[in-house]
């Protein structure tokens, strides 16, 4: 199985971020977490990169063909990661 690069932007207090990370764990998906809670430059970078002002933002795959998923959306994550629910 080809491991896809997975990045998740989070804030410490965001429940849906936690739920998304639980989903990754359950399906054995390795991910990189960028916590933007206390880092305004990372928060700005996320907004510029994703055009979004809400967490979680999940990027799957390699730039420039990476896929972006906004929010905790199990079905979209499953499709992007090629896993069966």
């Amino acid at each position, binding site marked *: 199985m080809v491991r896809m690069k997975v990045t998740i932007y989070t804030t410490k*207090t*965001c429940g849906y971020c936690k739920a998304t990370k*639980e989903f990754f764990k359950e399906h054995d998906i390795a991910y990189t977490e960028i916590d933007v809670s206390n880092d*305004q430059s990372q*928060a700005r970078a996320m907004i510029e990169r994703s055009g979004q002002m*809400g967490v979680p933002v999940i990027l799957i795959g390699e730039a420039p063909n990476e896929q972006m998923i*906004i*929010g905790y959306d*199990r079905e979209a994550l499953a499709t992007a990661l090629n896993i069966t629910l």
Partner: protein
Amino acid sequence: MTYDVLIVGYGPAGITAGIYAARKKLSVVLIGDLPGGEVRNSGDIENWPGDRTTDGNALADKMIAHLQDHADGVEVVQDKVAKITKDENTFTSLTESGKEFQSKTVIYTAGRHPRMLGVPGEEEHRNLGVTYCATCDAPLFGGKDVAVIGGGNTGAEAVIMLQKIASHIYLLHDTDKLNADPVLIANFENDPKVTILYNTQTTGITGEQLVSGLSYKNKATQEETTLAVEGIFVTIGANPNTEPVKDLIELNKFKAIPADRYAVTSVPGFFAAGDVTDIRDAQIVVAAGHGCSAALSAGDYISRLPK
């Protein structure tokens, strides 16, 4: 297999019901998509007895760990129930990912979801400056001018979170008095960074891609004003998550499930607890208590079923 109890919802009501049902040695499956429920999206919590100050994530983690102590009796499925039907004495619950579960009883604790304003520009700017979860998204608005709409406890908590982050905060409320607890209001009523606007009605949200403005009307003078803000936190209450049971049970005019203090509803074997019901107080401690009653009621119901 047919479970004794199927619990819908992974918040305080559902988790408490799970713990009580497991201790009664009932077979239980709990289905929910957000572990800990909406509690996760609460900020600081100072009214959960035993924990003087905690926060949503910490409390949710503790509740889940407690439920996991009963992992041999409670199967947890991270999914969302889409529809529940009843046939004779058996309930069938279908999930969004297409799984089907049979049970003798259902304890429905699906909670509520934040209500939308229903004004032009809101839907288009969701996650582009409009947010319904201050706890999640407040850190993204560092140094920006923002508006919080709704002066209840959730709105007041949003203002408190934003005081440390945003540049200026407008709190818009629809009457001449905030509904939030005075102990919360005291945190910001004299803060020059916070402007409280009373008797307002939000009329629209504007912005190219990201939000840049909010229009509101003064209900007394009918005068319309536009604020230059980049963030809008909507905290005007919540609607019950009752779509999956709308054909199973009669809802009240707020689409909540009428349930008594024992979590008994008009459908035998279908119990409902917490914020999804017509209970008056949407509080964590109340939801947990109601979840306990639901499990005890379900146990009682099962013991009376024909063998």
